[in-house]
C-alpha cells in the first residue's frame, strides 16, 4: 500500500501529458486506487504481493492494466451494492469495483496463463497530445 502515492503520481503525470482534464484525472485516480487496493486487500493474504502496472496513454484514450499473481478473480462477478438502503443496513465495503465501473468506460479481465489476473481499465480522453509509459510497481 505504501506504493500507492507513487503509482497515483505516475498515472496523473502520464495522463495529464496525454491531455486528461481534471475530471478525467480524478476518475482515473479513483479507479487506479480501487483496483490496486482490491488486489492487495483481497488478492494477497497479508496485503502484499507483486502488482505490475502498465499505462498506455494515447490521444483520446488511456488504458491502464494491472497484472497480479493472486487467485483468479473476475470483477464482473461482483454484485453492485445497494445504494438505497438505510444506514443500519449499509455494509462497510463493496464500493470499490462499483466506483471503477462508474468512472471508466470499460473494465476488462482475463486470467494470466502463468496464474494471476490481468485487469485493464479503458477511458476515453478528450484531447490531442500523446504519451506512453510503462510503470512497474512491485508491492512486496
Amino acid at each position, binding site marked *: 500500500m505504501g506504493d500507492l502515492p507513487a503509482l497515483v503520481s505516475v498515472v496523473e503525470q502520464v495522463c495529464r501529458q496525454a491531455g486528461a482534464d481534471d475530471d478525467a484525472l480524478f476518475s482515473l485516480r479513483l479507479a487506479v486506487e480501487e483496483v490496486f487496493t482490491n488486489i492487495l486487500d483481497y488478492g494477497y493474504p497479508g496485503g502484499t504481493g507483486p502488482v505490475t502496472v502498465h499505462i498506455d496513454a494515447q490521444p483520446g484514450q488511456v488504458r491502464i492494466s494491472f497484472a497480479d499473481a493472486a487467485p483468479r478473480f473476475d470483477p464482473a462477478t461482483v454484485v453492485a451494492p445497494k445504494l438505497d438502503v438505510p444506514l443500519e443496513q449499509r455494509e462497510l465495503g463493496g464500493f470499490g469495483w*462499483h466506483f471503477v465501473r462508474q468512472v471508466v468506460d470499460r473494465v476488462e479481465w482475463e486470467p494470466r496463463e502463468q496464474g494471476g489476473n490481468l485487469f485493464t481499465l479503458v477511458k476515453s480522453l478528450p484531447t490531442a497530445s500523446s504519451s506512453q509509459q510503462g510503470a512497474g510497481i512491485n508491492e512486496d
Partner: protein
Amino acid sequence: MKIEISHRDRVAVVCVVGSVDGTTAPALTAELHACVTSGNVHLVADFSGVDYTSSIGLRTLLATMKETRLQGGDLRLSNVTPNVLKVLELSGFTSIMKLYDDVESAVGSYAV
C-alpha cells in the same frame, strides 16, 4: 493529511486537509474513533480541504456515523468539494448523510 479538532459547545469539529485514500484513511478513522470514545458523539467533519476520497474514506465515514448514531449523536459533513461530492453521490451516501454548506450551519443543526 492534517487533522485538527476544535470544540463548539457540545459539537466536535474535525477539520481535515488532504486526500483520504488507502494511506491516510486509517489515521482519520483513528481520530474520529478517539473522538467518539472520549464522549464526543456530535461530530462535524469540515471537508473544505479534502480534494479526494476513495471507497476507504466512505468506510471511515460510515463506521463513524454508525458509531455516533448508536449513542444518540451523528457525523455531519460541511464544505464538501465537488470531487468528494461525486463519490458520495456514486455511493448513495447523500441520502444517509447530512451535508451543509459551512461549519456554522453544520454545528447549528445539532441545536435544532
